[in-house]
């Protein structure tokens, strides 16, 4: 079964039809999605700005990241959950939507970014934990992350315009 066929099959399920046709459910899920973005992107941005040495300079990087990470995960779970439901409401339309495709691509890269970060530069965090600004590679990760998440929000909003 191709991706398109899977989308078409999803499109015709009862759940998809119910979300699509309800006047309240779709906007409600949308609202949860936007709130989750504030929690996810907002907390990610705070860690990024700490790495860049712009805020919370006197707090250890590991303390900032460690305390904020659970919030980021909650935001991620809420965003992914509501996002899947929004996709479910219009799978075929999303499949052909260029903004949606671009957003998914950005999401994959935005997911890989911290994965690589945690397996490389962040392993030596003890050496630069108290420094105002993190080493160059960590700062690069932070810039990349800020750019990617901004792109995801912009692309997400653009979905409605295609």
């Amino acid at each position: 079964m191709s991706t398109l066929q899977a989308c078409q099959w999803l499109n015709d399920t009862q759940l998809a039809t119910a979300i699509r046709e309800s006047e309240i459910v779709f906007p409600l899920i949308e609202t949860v999605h936007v709130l989750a973005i504030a929690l996810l992107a907002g907390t990610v941005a705070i860690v990024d700005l700490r790495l860049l040495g712009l805020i919370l300079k006197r707090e250890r990087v590991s303390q900032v990241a460690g305390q904020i990470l659970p919030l980021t995960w909650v935001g991620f779970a809420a965003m992914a959950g509501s996002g899947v439901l929004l996709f479910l409401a219009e799978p075929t339309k999303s499949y052909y939507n260029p903004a949606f495709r671009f957003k998914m691509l950005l999401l994959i890269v935005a997911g890989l970014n911290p994965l690589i970060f945690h397996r490389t530069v962040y392993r030596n965090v003890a050496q630069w934990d108290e420094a105002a600004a993190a080493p160059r590679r960590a700062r690069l990760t932070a810039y990349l992350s800020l750019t990617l998440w901004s792109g995801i929000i912009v692309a997400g909003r653009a979905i409605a315009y295609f």
Partner: protein
Amino acid sequence: MSLLPLFQWAAHTPALAVMRDSKWGFAIVEMVHLLALAALGGAVLVVDLGILGIGFRRQAPGRVARELAPIFVVSLIAMVLSGTLLVGAEAMKCYYHPAFRLKMALFAAAVLFHFTIHRSAIGSFSTWSKVAAVGSLTLWLAVGLAGREIGFL
């Protein structure tokens, strides 16, 4: 004094024609509004949830709030500017829209609350500061919900 003339002016001024007539003019400003919302919402959530014992528990809440104040202020300014342009694009629709009026009232309350009660209450993890944190979360959430509601009707 009624604000109606101001909204009527906005609805007809050539200065806002780009916002009214171009799909992408509106879309881009909306994206800026959303980006600022993520930053503002993130800062509010991290400070207030920290006071409630979720997230930043080891730092004094007042200090976290001070450190995040630049994010809050910059995104607040970005939201007001982009929001003003969005209203300019649909001035008359907004003027008569109950959700818009509600949002403006809630927004004024949220900003006022933030710079007065909230600011003075969050110096510690006291019960009073927890009340202020819940109040702040409720107000900002209500602003967001009312804002979403403008998109309907």
